[in-house]
C-alpha cells in the first residue's frame, strides 16, 4: 500500500484479492507447522525471563517481602506499579474487541483476537502482583466474601475490595468473550487438521460447532451484548484501580481526575503493547496483508489521541494543584517535576506526551520501524507514569520528618522481568496453538463476502 492512500473511501481491510481458503491457510499455518528457529529463540528468551522471575518470587516466599525495596514510607512500590501497568495493558484488548465493535470499526477484525488474548495474559500477569503484595499469598482466599471460620465478611467500603471484584470479573468476562469468539475458528481447525490429537482437542473445544445460521443468529446477538457489557466493564476496572489511590488522602493521589486519567492512560499503554507485539507477529507469521499498515496507522491515531489526553491530565494536575491553593498539593507536583525523582517524571512526560506527537505526521504513522520505536517508548513511559504517581507521592507526604527515599532491590527487578517473561511466553504459546486472527470475522469483511442483494431489485 502506497503512502498516498486516500481517506475518501474505505480502504480494503484485507489487502489483495484473498480467497477464504488462503485466509484459513495463512492463519492456521502456525498451528499446523513445526515452529521455526525464530520462535524457539523468542520463547527461549521469554521463558528465561519467566524463570528469573519465578526464582525471585520463590526467594520472596521463603524469606518474606523484606527482600523487596518496600520500606517506610514507601509501602506500595514495584508490586503495585506492575499491577497497574499490566492491568492497563489489558484494557486495549477489550477496547479493540468491544468498543470498536460497537462503533462498527471493521478494521479491528485483523487485530481483535490477538488483542483479546493479550488482555487475558496481561490480566493474569497483573493478578500475580496484588496476590504477592499481601505478603502471605496463601491466605488470599480471605479477599473473597465466603463464609469462613472467622464468621467475618470483607470490608465492602474499601476500594481494594472493589478491585478484587473488578479484576476477577474483568478476567472472567474477557475469557468467555475470547472463548466465544474462538468457537467457530476451532471448528474450522477441526475440519482442516490431519493430526489425530489435534482433531480430538479441536473437537472438544469447538463443542460441535457447525456454522449453522440458526446458531449464528443467537451467537451474534450474544457477541453484541457481551461487547455492550464489556464496554462499561473496561471503563469501570481502571476507574476502580484509580480509586485505590484517589480514595486515600495522600497528596497527589486524592484527586477527582484520576478515573478518566487512568482509563486514558490504560488504553494508551495497551495500544502501545498491542502495536509492539503485532509488529513482530505480522512479520514472523507473514500476515502483513491481514494486519495491514492501514490498521497500524489507525492504532497510531488512537495512540496520538490517548497520549494527548494523558498529557492534558498531567498538565491539569499541575493547574489544579496551583488553583486549589493547597500548599501540600503544590509542593507534591513541584517535587514530582523538579525533586529527586524528576528524572522519572521527565522520562514519563517525554515518552507519553512529546514523542507520540510525532504521529501527527502521516509519514511517521505509516513507517513501521519508527512506529515500533515509538510504541516501545510508550511502554516505558507508561510504566514510569505509575512509578512517578506511587513513589513520588509516598516518599514525600505531609510530614517532612517521615520523608524517605525508595530503592528497589534486584528481587524487584527480577520479578518485573519475570512478569514480562510470563506475558510473552503466554503470547508465544497462544500464537503457536490458536488462530491469532479471527478467521470467521476476517472472512466476513473481505470484499465480496456479503451478499449484494442484487436479486431483490430484479
Amino acid at each position, binding site marked *: 500500500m502506497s503512502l498516498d492512500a486516500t481517506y475518501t473511501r474505505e480502504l480494503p481491510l484485507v489487502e489483495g484479492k484473498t480467497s477464504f481458503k488462503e485466509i484459513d491457510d495463512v492463519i492456521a499455518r502456525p498451528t499446523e507447522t513445526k515452529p521455526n528457529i525464530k520462535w524457539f529463540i523468542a520463547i527461549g528468551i521469554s521463558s528465561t525471563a519467566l524463570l528469573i522471575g519465578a526464582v525471585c518470587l520463590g526467594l520472596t516466599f521463603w524469606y518474606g517481602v523484606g527482600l523487596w525495596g518496600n520500606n517506610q514510607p514507601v509501602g506500595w512500590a514495584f508490586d503495585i506499579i506492575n499491577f497497574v501497568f499490566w492491568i492497563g495493558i489489558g484494557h486495549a484488548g477489550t477496547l479493540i474487541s468491544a468498543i470498536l465493535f460497537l462503533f462498527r470499526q471493521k478494521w479491528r477484525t485483523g487485530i481483535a483476537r490477538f488483542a483479546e488474548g493479550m488482555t487475558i495474559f496481561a490480566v493474569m500477569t497483573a493478578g500475580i502482583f496484588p496476590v504477592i503484595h499481601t505478603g502471605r499469598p496463601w491466605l488470599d482466599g480471605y479477599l473473597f466474601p465466603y463464609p469462613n471460620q472467622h464468621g467475618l465478611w470483607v470490608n465492602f467500603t474499601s476500594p481494594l475490595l472493589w478491585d478484587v471484584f473488578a479484576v476477577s470479573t474483568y478476567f472472567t468476562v474477557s475469557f*468467555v468473550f475470547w472463548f466465544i469468539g474462538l468457537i467457530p475458528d476451532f*471448528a474450522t481447525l477441526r475440519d*482442516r487438521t490431519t493430526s489425530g490429537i489435534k482433531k480430538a482437542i479441536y473437537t472438544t473445544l469447538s463443542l460441535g460447532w457447525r456454522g449453522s445460521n440458526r446458531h449464528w443468529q443467537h451467537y451474534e446477538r450474544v457477541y453484541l451484548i457481551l461487547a455492550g457489557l464489556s464496554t462499561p466493564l473496561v471503563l469501570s476496572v481502571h476507574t476502580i484501580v484509580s480509586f485505590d489511590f484517589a480514595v486515600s488522602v495522600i497528596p497527589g493521589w486524592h484527586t477527582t481526575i484520576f478515573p478518566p486519567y487512568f482509563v486514558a492512560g490504560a488504553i494508551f499503554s495497551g495500544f502501545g503493547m498491542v502495536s509492539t507485539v503485532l509488529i513482530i507477529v505480522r512479520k514472523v507469521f507473514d500476515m502483513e496483508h491481514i494486519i495491514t499498515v492501514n490498521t497500524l496507522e489507525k492504532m497510531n491515531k488512537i495512540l496520538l489521541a490517548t497520549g494527548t489526553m494523558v498529557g492534558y491530565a498531567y498538565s491539569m494536575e499541575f493547574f489544579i494543584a496551583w488553583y486549589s491553593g493547597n500548599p501540600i498539593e503544590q509542593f507534591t507536583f513541584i517535587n514530582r517535576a523538579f525533586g529527586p525523582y524528576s528524572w522519572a517524571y521527565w522520562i514519563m512526560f517525554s515518552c507519553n506526551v512529546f514523542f507520540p506527537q510525532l504521529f501527527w505526521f502521516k509519514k511517521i504513522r505509516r513507517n513501521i520501524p519508527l512506529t515500533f520505536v515509538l510504541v516501545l517508548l510508550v511502554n516505558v513511559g507508561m510504566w514510569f507514569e505509575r512509578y512517578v504517581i506511587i513513589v513520588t507521592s509516598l516518599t514525600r507526604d505531609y510530614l517532612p520528618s517521615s520523608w524517605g527515599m525508595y530503592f528497589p532491590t534486584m528481587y524487584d527487578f527480577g520479578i518485573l522481568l519475570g512478569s514480562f517473561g510470563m506475558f510473552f511466553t503466554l503470547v508465544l504459546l497462544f500464537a503457536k496453538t490458536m488462530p491469532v486472527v479471527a478467521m470467521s470475522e476476517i472472512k466476513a469483511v473481505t470484499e465480496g463476502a456479503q451478499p449484494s442483494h442484487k436479486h431483490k431489485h430484479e
Partner: protein
Amino acid sequence: MIGKILKKFDEKFLKSEPRTGELYAVAALFDTPDQIINAAEKVSGSGYKKFDVLTPYPVHGMDGAMNLKPTGIGWVGLIAGMSGTFLAFLMIWWMVEINYPNIFGGKPYFNLTASIPIMFELTVLLSALTLVGSLITLFLKLPANANPLMDTDFIKRVTSDKFGIYIEAKDAKFKFEEVNALFAELGSSKVSNIHEAVYDIGDTNNPLLNIKFIGVLLGTTASVVVITYFVLNVLLFLPPFDWMQRQPKVLPQTQSEFFKDGYSMRKPVEGTVARGFMPYEFNGMPDSMVVITPNPLPVTKKVLDLGKKRYDTYCSPCHGYYGKGDSRLRGQFPVPPTLHSVKVANWKDANIYHVITNGQNTMPSYASSISRDDRWAIVHYLRVLQRSTNAPESDFETK
C-alpha cells in the same frame, strides 16, 4: 515403535468411512453469498421447515431469507443482569447490616454508594456468564459432536470457504427427487447425501476416542490431582507456608541455648513489684502488730455484690454461705468456727483483712488468689452477713 502404533491409530480414525445409516439429509454447497441467500429464500419459500444454512461466517440478511424469528436471548442477559444487581445488593446488605455489623470509619453499617462498584461488577459477571452458558446449552444445544453432519466432506467445506444448505429427511415435505431437483435448479456446485452414522461398540471413528488425547486427558487429570493434593496437604504445611507457626522467638517451658541457666523464661529483677500487687506490709506478723487502717472501699451495692461473689467463690466452701462454719466440704477439711462470734464481730476490718491475706491456723493465705480490693469487698460483705444474724432493734423499724 510406540510412535508407529500411535500413527496407526491416527490413520484409522482420521479416515472418514462411508456412513451406512439412514438418510439424514440432502445437502448442497454453493460458492457465493448471493447464491446461498437465494437458495435459503427458495427453500423456506417452498415450505420446508427442517432445513439449515451453514456458512463459515454470518451472512447478512440470512435470518430474513430463512424466515427465522428474532432471537430472544437478549432477555436472558437482561434478567440475569438485573438479578446480579439485586443479589449483590442483597448480599452486601445482609452481610454488613444483618449477619455481622461492623463499624468502618464511623460510617453506617450499610453504605449504598460504596456498594455500587461491586453491584455493577456482579451485574456484568452474572449477565455475561448466564448469557454464554444459556447460549451454549439452551440456544445452540452444544456440544453436538454426534450430529450426522460431523466429519462429512460437506461440513469440511462450510467451515472454510463454501456455503451449504441441507434439508432433513424428516421434513414433512421431504421427497428425495424434489429436493435434488431444487438444489440443481438453484445452481449448487455439489449435492450430497448425508447418512446417519452407525456407531458400534469400540468404534474408532469418534475423534474423542483418540488414544493420545485420552492419554493427555488422563495425564492432566493425574497431575492436577497430585499437585492439588501436594499443595493443600503438604506444601501449605511446610515452611514458610506454615501459618507463622515457626518464628524466631523463645516459647515458655522450653530449653534455651542462649541463657546460661538453660531456661528460656527469665525471672524478674530482684525486688520487682508487679503493677497492682504491692506486697502486704504485715505479712507473717501476729494479729497484734497490725496497724489498724479503715476499709478503703465505700459501702455500695456494687462493692457488696462483688464481695458476695468473691465470698461465695473463695470463702464459702469452708465457712459456709452464711459464715456459720457450716462447711460444704462434709468433713473433708477441718470446719472453722462461726464468723458470727463476738470475737470476730468486734474485730476491726483490718483484722479480718489480715486473716484473709495472711492466713490463720489451718487457713492458708489467700493473697495470691484474691486481689486486694476484692479482699476489702469480702470484708464489707462479711459485715452484712454478721448484721443479718444479729440485727439491732432499729433495723426492724417500719415506716
